[in-house]
């Protein structure tokens, strides 16, 4: 048995060596006009639009599916139950999970330890992340506007709160979650980052439910100023964290170029 294995291994080794030799059996004299030809070759490069649309394909399907599910649930709730203010906190508590999905797309490179490799690609991580964030942001905005339109058209919220105020109620927990998850991503660099982000999202969602159910009249004019201030502060904080994230990516790119 041992002899047979030994024979098999040496046979395999021989074939491997032969295959290695075959790689060089077709060696050619080096081409003389290669660089000149490639430099002058006017081949059609991918346009900006093609690049952006190609990025949509790399966003995981679960992001789109979850967004659609949230939209459908809102639709079903509106048509099957009597719409009440509670619908706002239900929807606004679900929104942080949509933002978590979007953030997980950006943290994908860190999670799978692909940052260094992606930094050395033609379109670097910063560029790709910006484009994907843009696409996801637009998709989230479309979802938000769709839900807000549904709520204003099918309920009295539009009359009671107005479109902008409704947006404020839905967006504030979303922004709080964006800030929280970006804070985690900027400070933690490990495969466990997404678990912490998940914890932040659950906390934000639970906090939103708690506030909405425990604090009376939270969606009234009485607390309007608090919502406005929270919204503005969160926008500023989110922008700061985003700038930090992009700067970190630039630093990584600089480090990669130095060590390349």
């Amino acid at each position, binding site marked *: 048995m041992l002899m047979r294995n030994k024979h098999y291994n040496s046979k395999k080794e*021989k*074939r491997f060596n*032969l*295959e290695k*030799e*075959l*790689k*060089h*059996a*077709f*060696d*050619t*004299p080096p*081409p*003389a*006009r*290669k660089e000149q*030809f*490639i430099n002058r*070759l006017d*081949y*059609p*490069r*991918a346009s900006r639009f093609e690049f952006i649309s190609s990025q949509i394909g790399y966003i995981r399907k679960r992001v789109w599916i979850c967004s659609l599910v949230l939209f459908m649930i809102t639709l079903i709730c509106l048509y099957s139950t009597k719409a009440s203010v509670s619908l706002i906190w239900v929807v606004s508590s679900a929104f942080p999970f949509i933002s978590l999905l979007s953030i997980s797309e950006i943290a994908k490179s860190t999670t799978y330890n692909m940052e260094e490799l992606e930094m050395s690609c*033609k379109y670097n991580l910063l560029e790709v992340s910006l484009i994907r964030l843009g696409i996801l942001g637009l998709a989230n905005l479309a979802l938000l506007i769709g839900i807000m339109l549904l709520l204003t058209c099918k309920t009295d919220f539009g009359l009671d709160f107005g479109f902008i105020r409704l947006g404020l109620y839905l967006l504030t927990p979303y922004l709080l979650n964006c800030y929280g998850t970006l804070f985690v991503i900027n400070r933690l660099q490990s495969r466990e980052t997404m678990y912490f982000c998940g914890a932040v999202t659950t906390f934000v969602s639970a906090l939103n439910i708690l506030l909405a159910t425990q604090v009376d009249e939270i969606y009234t004019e009485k607390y309007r100023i608090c919502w406005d201030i929270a919204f503005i502060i969160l926008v500023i904080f989110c922008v700061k964290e985003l700038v930090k994230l992009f700067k970190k990516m630039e630093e990584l790119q600089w480090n990669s170029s130095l060590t390349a």
Partner: protein
Amino acid sequence: MSLNLQDQYDKIYKYCYFKVKNKEIAEDLTQETFLKYFNRKPRINRGKNLAYLYTIAKNLCIDFYRERGRSDALYVHDDKVQLQSSNSDEVSKFEINYAVRQAVSMLPVDLQELLLLRYANELGINEIANIMNISRFSVYRKLNKALDLLKTVLREEGF
């Protein structure tokens, strides 16, 4: 893309050189292949497009011989590759390389082409099947046959 193009240029050049055995002509044909390809296809992608690139190269080589009436000389070996050897290790490498080259040249042309595509140009079985217009099963079968023949020849040579 530029890296890919550089890589593909070398591989197509190797393929054309294998067909025409002349450095200048092989490079002309390589460049013509890329010009024709980019006239019809937007970008080099993987999969069938790579097979398309090779098909253009193959047809250009056939056209070259058809035009010049040299089809009979298509596979005459004209090894001009300079292999320099400085020490004993290099000498032994040179000997092995020379023996393998000689053994490969004894194989039928289609098997030589198959070995070039598979081992020198590192193409996948699917891509080779597309280029050679044969089934995946045939590619496997021919590859095994080529390797067995090579081993027999090399064994006779004492390797």
